[in-house]
C-alpha cells in the first residue's frame, strides 16, 4: 500500500533521502499548490537519516499494551526498529530493507522474513500493517488530487485535498482525504477509504511542537473504521535528523545483535 501511510510512524522508519537543506527549510507559506502541500506532508518526517525514540500504545477490544522503541533510518528504504519495553519483548527488532521486512526474535534468537502473503498483516499487533512500513512513494506521484475544501474548520484555517489513486498505482485505497493547516501545512488528519469508497481508517495528528529542529505533529492516532474503542497511538519522544549512521547498522547481522 504505497502512499500516504508513511506519514505516520513508519514515515520515520522509511525516511526519504531528502536534501539536507530540507530540514532547515522554513515552514511553507500559505498559497502553496496542492502538490507542494502533499510533498510537504510526505517530507515532514524525512531526512537523509534519522534516529529517535517513540512509544506506541495499542488498544483493541481484547487487550491494551504499550511499547517503547528506538528507531534508526537511512535513506528512504532502510530502517531498523528495536523494542525497549515491555520487558518480555525487549530486543525484538524489525529491519526494513527495500521491500523486505525481517523480524529478530530474541527469545528464540532467530531472524525471520515476513512472507509477502503476510505483508497486509498487523505490524507488532498494531493497527498499522507491514506494508505500511515498506512502501515508499510520494502521494503526489501515486494519486490524482484536488483541493476540495478551503476555509475555517474546527477553529483552524484548513485545506482539504482529496486524492484518488492513479489507475497505474498499486494502492489498496480507493480514496484518501488529507486535511492540513493552511498556515504551516501541518497535517491534521487523513481519512482512508476502501475500494468501494467506504471509510476504512483514519489517522489523526496531534501534539504539534518542535522536535529535532522541525515543527511537526508528535502524536498520531490510527483509528480503524467500525471498531470503536480500538486505536493505535504513536508518540515521538525524541528525534534527530541527519545523524551519521553506518550502512552496516541495517544488516541482518546487526539485527541479531
Amino acid at each position: 500500500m504505497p502512499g500516504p501511510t508513511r506519514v505516520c510512524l513508519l514515515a520515520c522508519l522509511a525516511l526519504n533521502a531528502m536534501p539536507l537543506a530540507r530540514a532547515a527549510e522554513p515552514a511553507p507559506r500559505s498559497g502553496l499548490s496542492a502538490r507542494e502541500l502533499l510533498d510537504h506532508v510526505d517530507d515532514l518526517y524525512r531526512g537523509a537519516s534519522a534516529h529517535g525514540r517513540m512509544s506506541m500504545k495499542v488498544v483493541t477490544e481484547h487487550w491494551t499494551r504499550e511499547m517503547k522503541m528506538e528507531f534508526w533510518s537511512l535513506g528512504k528504504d532502510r530502517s531498523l526498529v528495536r523494542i525497549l519495553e515491555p520487558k518480555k519483548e525487549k530486543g525484538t527488532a524489525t529491519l526494513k530493507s527495500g521491500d523486505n521486512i525481517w523480524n529478530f526474535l530474541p527469545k528464540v534468537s532467530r531472524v525471520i522474513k515476513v512472507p509477502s502473503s503476510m505483508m497486509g498483516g498487523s505490524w507488532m499487533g498494531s493497527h498499522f500493517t507491514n506494508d505500511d512500513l515498506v512502501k515508499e512513494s510520494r502521494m503526489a506521484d501515486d494519486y490524482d488530487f484536488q483541493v476540495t475544501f478551503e476555509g475555517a474548520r474546527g477553529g483552524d484555517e484548513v485545506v482539504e485535498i482529496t486524492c484518488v489513486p492513479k489507475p497505474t498505482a498499486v494502492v489498496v485505497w480507493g480514496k484518501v482525504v488529507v486535511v492540513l493547516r493552511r498556515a504551516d501545512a501541518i497535517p491534521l488528519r487523513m481519512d482512508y477509504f476502501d475500494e468501494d469508497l467506504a471509510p476504512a481508517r483514519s489517522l489523526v495528528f496531534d501534539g504539534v511542537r518542535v522536535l529535532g529542529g522541525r515543527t511537526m505533529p508528535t502524536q498520531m492516532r490510527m483509528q480503524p473504521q467500525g471498531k470503536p474503542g480500538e486505536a493505535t497511538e504513536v508518540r515521538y519522544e525524541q528525534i534527530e535528523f541527519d545523524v551519521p549512521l553506518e550502512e552496516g547498522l541495517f544488516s541482518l547481522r546487526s539485527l541479531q545483535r
Partner: protein
Amino acid sequence: MSTLRIAWRNLWRNSRRTWITAAAIALNTAVLIATFGLMRGIVVDMVRQITLLSVGDAVVHAEGYRQERSFFKPIPAEVASRVLAASEAAGVRAAPRAFGFGLVSSGSKSSGAMFWGVDAAAERRAFDLPGRAAEGSFLSLPDERGGGRTYLGRPVRELVLGRKLAKTLQAGVGAEIVAVVQAGDGSLGNELFTVTGVLGGVGEEIDRSAAFIHRADFDELFVADGRVHQIALSARGALTDAEVVQRLAAAARGAELVSWRALLPAVSDMTRMFDAMMWIFALVFLLAAGLGVTNTMLMATYERIREFGVLKALGRSPWGILRDVAVEAWLLALSATAIGLVVGLAGSWYLWARGIDMSSLGGDIVVQGVTMNNVWRATLVPMDVVGPVVAMWLACVLASLYPAARAARIDPVRAMTHV
C-alpha cells in the same frame, strides 16, 4: 397357484426368446447393483473421511465462532468440561482443540499457518488423522514423552505439518521451525519447534495450512490460558451424526453443537445429490429393460391371440387375462433378477474387495476439499440391492400392461378366426 404354473409354462413356450429377454433384465439388474455399490462407495468414503479422519460426526464451537473464527471466542470453560464429561457417558469420543493463526518459518522460507493446539491422546482415540503421518509420526502421547520428546538426543517442542505447508517451507522431519504469533495478551508470541511429523494428504485445509502442536505448547505460545475453540466428536461409526447431536445437546447448552452436515453443507448436499444421480441413472436402465419386456410380451400375446379368444369365449374376464399376462411378466422379471442379483453381488463383492486403483491417475482425488481414498471401493447396503431388484419387477410388470391390455380387450369371435 395354477395361474403361476400356467404363466411359467407359457414363458418356456419360446425358450430362446425368454432367455434373451431374461438375460437383458439380468444384465441390467447386475449393472445397477454394481453401480449403486460404486456410487455408494464414494458417498460412504466421503462421509468416513469426514467423520473418522478429523472433523467428526458433530462439532462444538462457541456461539458465533464459525462465522468469525475469532481466537477470542473460545467455548465457555464450563461448557467444554461438561461436553467432555458427557461424551464419555454417551459413547462418543471427544477431541478438544484450540486454533490460532500465526507465522511459521524454516530457514529462509516462511508462511502463514493455522496452529492446532491438540490433545494427542484424545486425537488418537477419536480420529484416524494421527495415523496418517507420511513422514515421522503424529504428536507423541504424554507417557511416550517422558518429560519432553527428544530429537537426535535433545529435547524439542513437537510440531506436525500439513503436507503442502511442509512443502512450502521445504521442511521435513527434524527441521527447526520458528513460530511467531499474535498472542492473546497482544504480545508477540514466539517459540522454536522441531518438525516431528509431516502428514499425508488428508484434506485441502489441513494440507495447506495446519501446524499441529501440543495444547500445552499452544497455551504458552498464544498465552491462551487453556482455551478451547472446538470439540470434535466422533462415535467411530457406532452412532449417526444426528444421534451424537441428540445425546450431547443438553451438555452443549451455552455453545453451538452441529452435525458435520451443517459444518460442511456442500459435502452433505453432494452426498444427497449422489442419491438422486443414482436413481436418474437407474431410470435409464429400467426403461431399457422395460422396453425389452414390452416387446417380448407383445410377441407372446400375439402368438396366442386365438387362445385368448377361446379363453374369453369360455368366460374369462378381461381383468383375468390382464392378470395372467402381468404375472407372466413378473415371473420373467423374478427369475431374471435372481440371476442378475447373483451376478451383481459377485461384481460388487469384487469391487469391494479389490476396488479400482485410482492412484495411477496421479495425485490425490479431492472432492469438495475432502481427500478421497486412492482405491475406489464399492459399498453394499441392503437398500441399494433391494431397490434395483424391486424397481426392476415394477418396470417389467408396468411394461407388460400394454400388451396385456391388448390381449384383454380382444373380441373372441375375431380372435378365434384370426389366422
